Each structure stands twice: as structure tokens, then as C-alpha cells.
């Protein structure tokens, strides 16, 4: 009777194991990373010979983890892409809310400032108007500073994300290495749970940074960055960390270390949340900061240059309303030499929203674009008397540099926060044109003099009053002092021709008579003229950058647009990446996920098998007892 009993018993046990696997599946229906399992059941070996061969029941040979590694790898990659897109999008939206709208960004503050310039042009001698203009200038610099501050705090947040991300990755890398150890020591039958756990951890790492996975024969898995920098080798985990940027101490870079050497991997990381942080920082945040700085430089330079061409209420030529910060020069911490590089602006209108690297190769200095690496020709020798000139900058190099020393130049980055108001006296805004002309009321001829244009603002005698007096016969004229002392000999007169002196140019038209006098001189203090105020107000829309093709208003609109379209693009990218990840997750789930209906059916199946096996045992038992009873 042992045959049937043993057979039934093996079926009973198999059903029990089947129920075990099924209930485990049911219990883990919500477990993250769990792959469903099923028993691998085969028929028992045959006993007997010839025609009388009987099976010996059933054997459960293993518990199978149902899994598709190729699909899982695709999902891992998709998680990296989604992580990058999500973080990038998250920060792009923040940036968009800072700079992307006309109200919140810089545009409205610029508009308010130039509106007030216009108000000064409407009533140039009003001290209140001028005070308000200085107030608007201060408000504008504050807006620049605030935005700059907010961009800095974004940068800080990115640093924190890098630090926290690196810490999380480290923990996971160590756990993966440990799992590698346990899995490899499990021999040929690694635990399904450990495999699930390791996959889950790899996915978590991939969510932070893009990794490549290399399967080893012993069941371990090696992880590297996408360009091959190892992160986990067998049972050893490398240390991912952060360190200060070579140039900018306020900025962190991602590193990996094997305990002895540490290398920066920021450039190699292109996926995952950390990749998103890094790409947002270099593609968008830095660019936005440079653009904002360039607007600040443009406003300051165009306004200051025009203000210098006018006359303030004290009767002097205007001075700077805005002060700006010098271009930033950041030496590399790896520099071996002791050279110092001083940068200043040679021509703000030629400044571009770019960063540069100045490199010494042991013999000469070379300037490259930090973004593209393109070489930028330097003129000059770099000395104080003959500085290097390139990209609107002047560079003076002093001290001795070692070969390989590098400096980063950031002309625009710090300009937004560096913008200040240099005037506090409202009378010093130069609203009036510097030189005025007048026909003498005693003139008898019918000639008239045009308004003056300034051809040389630097002429020291520009504001000195001068008379143009016609000789008898009035075919010639002389420049004289107001008291009539001649300054020049007689010059031939042509009606309407340019008459230039002391840096100004006028035209006298018509028929003067001998003795007729025209005066040219400064408008003097308290002039209500607004010729320069009109020119100041026009600076907002006047071409300044890019050979006079781009105004500061254009730049501010461009910044809004750039930030907005980046946000829109990153938003669309995130949606696509999330959809791809979602689809792959469904695909993976369709292989590995638990379906409760299926498990319910399995329960019924195993239950029936169990009941039937039990019944077989009880029948065998009854038969055995009936035989016993015969002999009793």
C-alpha cells in the first residue's frame, strides 16, 4: 500500500508547496520590486519494468522567479531618463515663475524705470521727478539683486540635491555590493528575493544617475556610469560624493572615489535626477544668470554713456547713474603659478552672454569659449599698458603663471547683483543737451543758427561760450569770445555748411549781415532742456548689443522667451519620459506582476489537488484497514 500512499503524499506536498508559492504571491501583491514566483513541478521517477512501470508521484524541483531581464534593463534606463526630465522640469518651472513672466521678471522693472526717464523728459527741472527716477533706478537694481539672489538660492538647492543624491546613491551602491556578495555565495540557486531586492536598488540608483549594468558569471552585477567609470565592481562599492568646483567655490560637482583617487564625474552624468540637476544648472540656470547680468550691463552702460552726453542741473556734463561690477575672474584651485588676472570692460556692447577660459600653456595665453571650446583671438600683450582685448574685455596678467594654469572669466554672471546706483543727487541726472545756440536779437541779416550737435564730448572747451561773428562783407566769419576777442582768423562762410569748434557742430543758414552774431555755449545750470532726457528714454529700445542690433528691451524679452520655451520643452520631455517609463513598467509588470485572479485560480487548483491527494491517502488507508480486518 505504500505506492499509492507515497504518490498521494507527494501530490499533497506539491499542492502544499503550490499553495505556499501562491499565498506568497498574494501576500506580496503590493510589494515593490517583487517578482511573482511559481513552483516548478515535475513527475516523479518511474518504478518497475516492462509494461508495469508506475510513476512515483510528483516532485517540486524549484521555485521559479518569473522575470525578463531585458525588459527590466529597458525600464532601468527609462527611470534614468524620467528622473532627469522630472528634475529638469521641476526646476525649469521654478525658473519660469521667476523670470518667465513680464510682471515678475525684469521687464516690468525696466519698463517702470524708463517710464520715469520719460517723466523727467516731460518736466526736466522737477526735482521730484528726478528723485523718483533715482528711486526707480534703485528699485531696478533691487529687482536685479532679488532675481539674482533667487537664482543663487536655486543654485544652492541644486547643491543640496547633489549632496543628498550622492548620499542616497552611496547607500544603495553599498547595499548592491552586499547583495552581490550574498547572491554569489548562494551558489547556483540565488535567492529570488535577493535578486528582486538588487534589481530594486539598481532601479533606485538609476533614478538618481544613469548607470550601465554588466552581469558577471558568479551572479554579481557590476555598475558603471554611462561612460564606464565603475560604481560597483563585484562586492566592492565606490564612493560617490561632492566636492567644490575647481573655479567656483560656491558650486558643487559630483565625484566618485575608489578610496584613493577621486575624480569629477559631473560631465559624464547625463541621466537620472542628478543628471537633471547638472544639466539644468549648466544649460539653463547659468545661461539665465548670464542673460540677466548682460541686461544689467546693457542698461547701465547705455544709460551711463548717454548721461555723459548731457548736462545736469548744475551745468556740468553728466556722470554715471549706475555702477557695475567688474567681470569675475576665477582661478582654478589646481593652478600652480602665482599669476593674477585682472579683467575690466573695454566695450560693454561687445560683451556676450558667455563664459571663457584663459589658459597658459607655458609660453603664451589663450582664450577659449567655456561652452563651446572655440578659440577666441586675443589682441595685445596682457600688460597693463597693452592689455589683452577680446569679447569686450580687457585682461591684464601679472605675476608668473605655470603651464596649465586656467582662469574662468565670467563677464556677465555677477553683473545683476553687482548693479548699483552711483548717484544720490537728483540734480546730477543729465536731462539737457550740453550745448545751446542762439541768434542775437541785434542781428540785422536773416541768417539763423541750427541747434548744436556734439561731435567730441571730451573736448575740454565744449561748454565754453563762443560767438560766431560775421565780418563786413559777410562772406567770412570769426570765432570770438563773448567779449568779442577773436579766437580765430576769418573763415569763409557757406550757408548751411557745418561749422565746428570746441567739439560741437552747428550750421548757419541764410544771409547774415556784417556784425551779425550767433552764440554757441552751454545751456548752463538749471536748464529745462530735455534733449538728452529724450535720448536717455530711447536707450531702452535703442540697439546696443550685437553691433547695435539688440536693445536691452529685446534682451529682456528674449530672456522671458528662452526661459518659457525651456520650461515648455522640459515639460513636454517629462511627459514623454514618464509615459515611456509607465509603458515599460506595465510591460515588466505583465511578466512579473501578481494577478490576484490568477492566484485565486491557483488556490482553487492546489486546493483541489490537495483534497484529491488526501482522498487518495484515505482510500489507501481504508483498503489497508479492510485487509487488517480480514485477519482479525
Amino acid at each position, binding site marked *: 500500500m505504500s505506492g499509492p500512499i507515497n504518490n498521494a503524499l507527494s501530490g499533497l506536498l506539491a499542492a502544499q508547496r503550490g499553495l505556499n508559492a501562491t499565498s506568497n504571491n498574494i501576500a506580496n501583491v503590493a510589494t515593490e520590486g517583487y517578482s511573482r514566483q511559481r513552483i516548478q513541478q515535475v513527475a516523479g521517477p518511474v518504478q518497475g519494468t516492462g509494461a508495469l512501470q508506475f510513476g512515483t508521484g510528483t516532485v517540486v524541483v524549484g521555485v521559479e522567479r518569473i522575470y525578463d531581464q531585458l525588459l527590466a534593463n529597458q525600464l532601468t534606463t527609462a527611470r534614468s531618463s524620467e528622473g532627469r526630465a522630472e528634475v529638469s522640469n521641476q526646476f525649469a518651472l521654478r525658473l519660469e515663475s521667476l523670470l518667465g513672466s513680464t510682471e515678475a521678471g525684469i521687464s516690468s522693472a525696466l519698463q517702470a524705470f524708463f517710464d520715469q526717464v520719460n517723466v523727467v523728459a516731460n518736466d526736466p527741472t522737477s526735482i521730484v521727478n528726478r528723485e523718483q527716477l533715482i528711486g526707480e533706478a534703485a528699485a531696478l537694481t533691487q529687482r536685479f539683486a532679488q532675481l539674482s539672489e533667487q537664482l543663487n538660492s536655486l543654485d544652492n538647492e541644486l547643491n543640496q540635491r547633489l549632496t543628498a543624491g550622492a548620499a542616497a546613491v552611496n547607500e544603495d551602491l553599498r547595499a548592491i555590493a552586499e547583495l552581490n556578495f550574498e547572491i554569489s555565495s548562494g551558489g547556483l540557486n540565488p535567492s529570488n528575493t535577493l535578486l528582486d531586492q538588487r534589481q530594486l536598488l539598481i532601479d533606485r540608483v538609476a533614478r538618481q544617475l544613469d548607470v550601465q549594468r554588466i552581469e558577471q558569471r558568479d551572479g554579481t552585477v557590476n555598475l558603471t556610469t554611462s561612460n564606464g567609470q565603475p560604481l560597483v565592481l563585484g562586492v566592492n562599492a565606490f564612493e560617490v560624493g561632492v566636492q567644490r568646483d575647481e573655479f567656483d567655490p560656491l558650486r558643487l560637482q559630483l565625484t566618485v572615489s575608489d578610496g584613493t583617487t577621486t575624480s569629477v564625474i559631473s560631465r559624464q552624468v547625463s541621466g537620472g535626477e542628478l543628471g537633471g540637476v547638472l544639466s539644468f544648472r549648466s544649460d539653463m540656470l547659468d545661461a539665465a544668470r548670464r542673460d540677466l547680468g548682460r541686461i544689467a550691463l546693457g542698461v547701465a552702460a547705455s544709460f551711463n554713456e548717454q548721461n555723459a552726453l548731457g548736462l545736469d542741473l548744475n551745468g556740468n556734463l553728466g556722470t554715471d547713474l549706475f555702477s557695475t561690477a567688474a567681470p569675475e575672474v576665477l582661478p582654478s584651485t589646481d593652478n600652480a603659478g602665482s599669476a593674477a588676472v585682472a579683467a575690466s570692460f573695454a566695450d560693454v556692447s561687445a560683451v556676450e552672454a558667455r563664459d571663457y577660459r584663459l589658459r597658459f600653456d607655458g609660453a603664451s595665453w589663450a582664450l577659449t569659449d567655456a561652452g563651446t571650446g572655440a578659440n577666441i583671438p586675443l589682441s595685445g600683450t596682457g600688460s597693463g599698458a597693452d592689455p589683452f582685448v577680446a569679447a569686450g574685455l580687457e585682461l591684464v596678467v601679472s605675476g608668473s603663471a605655470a603651464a596649465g594654469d586656467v582662469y574662468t572669466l565670467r563677464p556677465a554672471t555677477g553683473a545683476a547683483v553687482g548693479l548699483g546706483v552711483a548717484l544720490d543727487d537728483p540734480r546730477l541726472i543729465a536731462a539737457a543737451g550740453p550745448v545751446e545756440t542762439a541768434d542775437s536779437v541785434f542781428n540785422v541779416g536773416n541768417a539763423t543758427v541750427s541747434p548744436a550737435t556734439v561731435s567730441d564730448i571730451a573736448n575740454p572747451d565744449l561748454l565754453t561760450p563762443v560767438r560766431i561773428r560775421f565780418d563786413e562783407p559777410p562772406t567770412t566769419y570769426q570765432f570770438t569770445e563773448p567779449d568779442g576777442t577773436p579766437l580765430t582768423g576769418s573763415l569763409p562762410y557757406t550757408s548751411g555748411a557745418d561749422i565746428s569748434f570746441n567739439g560741437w557742430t552747428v550750421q548757419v543758414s541764410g544771409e547774415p549781415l556784417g556784425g551779425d552774431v550767433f552764440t554757441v555755449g552751454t545751456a548752463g545750470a*538749471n536748464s529745462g532742456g530735455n534733449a538728452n532726457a529724450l535720448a536717455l528714454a530711447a536707450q531702452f529700445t535703442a540697439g546696443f548689443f550685437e553691433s547695435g542690433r539688440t536693445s536691452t528691451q529685446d534682451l529682456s524679452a528674449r530672456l522671458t522667451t528662452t526661459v518659457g520655451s525651456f520650461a515648455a520643452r522640459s515639460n513636454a520631455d517629462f511627459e514623454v519620459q514618464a509615459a515611456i517609463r509607465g509603458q515599460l513598467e506595465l510591460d515588466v509588470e505583465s511578466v512579473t506582476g501578481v494577478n490576484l485572479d490568477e492566484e485565486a485560480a491557483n488556490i482553487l487548483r492546489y486546493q483541489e489537488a490537495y483534497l484529491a491527494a488526501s482522498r487518495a491517502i484515505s482510500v489507501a488507508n481504508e483498503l489497508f484497514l479492510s485487509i487488517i480486518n480480514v485477519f482479525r
Partner: protein
Amino acid sequence: MRISTKSIQMQWLTTITQQQSRVARLQQQVGTGQRINSAIDDPVGAAQITRFEQALARLDTYARNADAAERRLNLQEIALGEVDDVLNRVRELVVQAGGAAAVAPGSRDAIADEVSELLTGLVDTANSQDGEGRFLFAGNRVETEPFPTLGSVPVYAGDQGVRFQRIGDDRLIQESNSGDEVFQLIRNGNGVFSVSADAGNTGSMNQTTATVIDLSAWVPGDYTIEFTAPNRYDIVNSSGVPLRVDASYSPGALIAFNGALISFEGEPAAGDEFQINASRNQSVFATVQRLVNTLRLDISDPAQRAQFQSQLNSGLQDIDQSLANINGVRSDLGARLNVIDRQRSVNEEVAFQIETSLSGVQDLDFAQAISELELRLTSLEAAQRSFAETRRNSLFNFI
């Protein structure tokens, strides 16, 4: 395809989240009435909106400038209208006093007093200020009283600067005229030359009219008509060079030379002289003040009467010159006010077009948005219902 239990939940969750975010966006659009609430909604449209808003802000500025310029031009127009009235009144009074014989000395004094009063008013008007206390006719020295009355005739303290305002992309409008231009740079006489009787004349002759009949023949300069006898005269220029020697003259005859034509009345005495001077600038105030002085002249003998009449006649010409100048400026002001009006309607037209384009880009199609919102809400509800159905539908319910 095999679907895991978790997938069903995940898919449901994804669907619901998507629907909800779409609904939220539609609700924001309906709430603000704007299709584009941030650049993410439509980056190209958002860039257009930025440009449109900048253009509208610029037009706003032009509108404010136009208002300011218009205010000032109107104030000048009012002031110059008053000057016109005053000068016409002066002219009337002078004409009235011109019937010299008929007007008694006492009433001439009264007329002189009135003209003198009018002069004071004229200076006050020339010193008009705008609402902010800036002088209208001081050129760019808007804080300096342009015509301080230190002596009897004010001396201009302003300059010849003029101010412009920007009222369009390529349109500047002149919003001021200097006091020099309005009140001072006025040629006396007939604008080419003036005639005056020498103070030492003893005859009863005075000039009546002085006109230019041929401007091309006129040689700018100063000339003297000297009567060597009641019927003989010479004309010499300022260098003493004679143009005409011992010409004959009969009372009532016209004297013409160098394109100038001068008529006289009365009889000259030997030694009488008349000066013909190229026109000089003479301010409105000087013109009126000279008339006051003339009106106060003693005219008891014929020579004095002749002098009085000569001065009166040239004074009338001066007044006419002043009136012509003032009215010339006034018509300029009017033309500029018209330019402002035209520019304003151009600006408004442009602004309207920009606003139309702006609303085309920015505004929401409510009908479409609301019907889409309803559709989304319905499908959201359907998704929720279907999940509940799916959940109820489990094999475990049957075992």
C-alpha cells in the same frame, strides 16, 4: 496580454492624474479667461504676448507724452490768444489817437495810460507759467522769469532752447517756443526796413506808408533822405555814399529807391531828414512802450505833430509785425496740436490692432474650453467608476 493587479491600479492612477491635471489647467484657463497662463501653455504665443505688451507699454508712454505736450501747447495758445487781443486793443487805441488833431491832449494821456497798463498785462502774459510753475516762454530756462521788468522795457532772461516730446516711434513734437522767438525776434517797420523822422526836423512832413515794391532790388542797409530844400532831396547810405543827389520833390509825391516805396504828407523844411533803416529786431514790449512814449509827446506845433504822426505810423507797422509774428506762432501751435491729435489716433489705431492680436493669441475660446472641461470631467468620472467596478470584480468574491 497578462495584466497584473498592480498594473490595473497603476493605469487607473495614471489616467486619473492626467485627467485631473488637464481639468485643473482648463479650470485655470476658464478662471482667468486666458488661453496662455504661462509660457508652458504655448511658448511661441507667450513670446508674442511679451512683444505685444512691450509695444502697448510704449504706446502708453507716447500717450502720456502727447497729453503733456498738448497741455503745454494749449497753455501757450491761451497766452498768445490773450497777447493777440491786447495787441489788437493797442492798435485800436493807436488808430484812435491818430486822428491827432481831433484828440485832445488829455484824452491822449488817457490812451497812453491805458496802453501802458496793457503793456504791463502783456509782460505778465509773457511770464506765464504752466501747472508745475515752469515759465512757458523762457526757452529752456524754465525756472527763470523770462521778462523781468527791471527798467521800463523787459530784457529777455531765457534762452532760445526748445523742447520736444516723443509722441510716436518716429515722431517728436516741439512743445515750446522761446520767448525770444515769440516776443523778441520781430523785425520792425515793414519787416525789411523802417522809416523814422529825424528828431530835429522843423517841417510839417511826416511819412505815412513804407512798403517794399521790389525785394530783389532792396540792398540791406541804412539810408538817409536829406531835404536840401523843401522841393529838393538827396539819398545817402550809411557810408555817406549818395544814391540820389538833388532830386526834385513835390508835396504828396512818393519817394522810391532800391525797391522801397515811401509816401509822405506835409511839407518838409530844408535840413529835414528821414532815416530809412534795414529792419531790426524789436520786441513786442519795446514796440508798445515806444507807442506809449509817442502818445505822451507834446504836439503843439506842426513839426512836433509831424514827428508824432511819423512815430505813430511806424509804430502801427511795428504792431502789425508783432501781430503777424504772434499769429504765426499761434498757427504753428495749432498745427502741432493737430499733429498730436493725428498721432494720437494713429497710436490708438495701432494699440487697437495690437490688442486685437494680443487677444487673438491670449484669449480663451470659452465655448470650446467649457465643452472640453465638461468632457474631461465626464471622462474623469467614468474612469473613477470603472475602477470601482474592476475592483468589485474579483475571483476571490466567488470562493
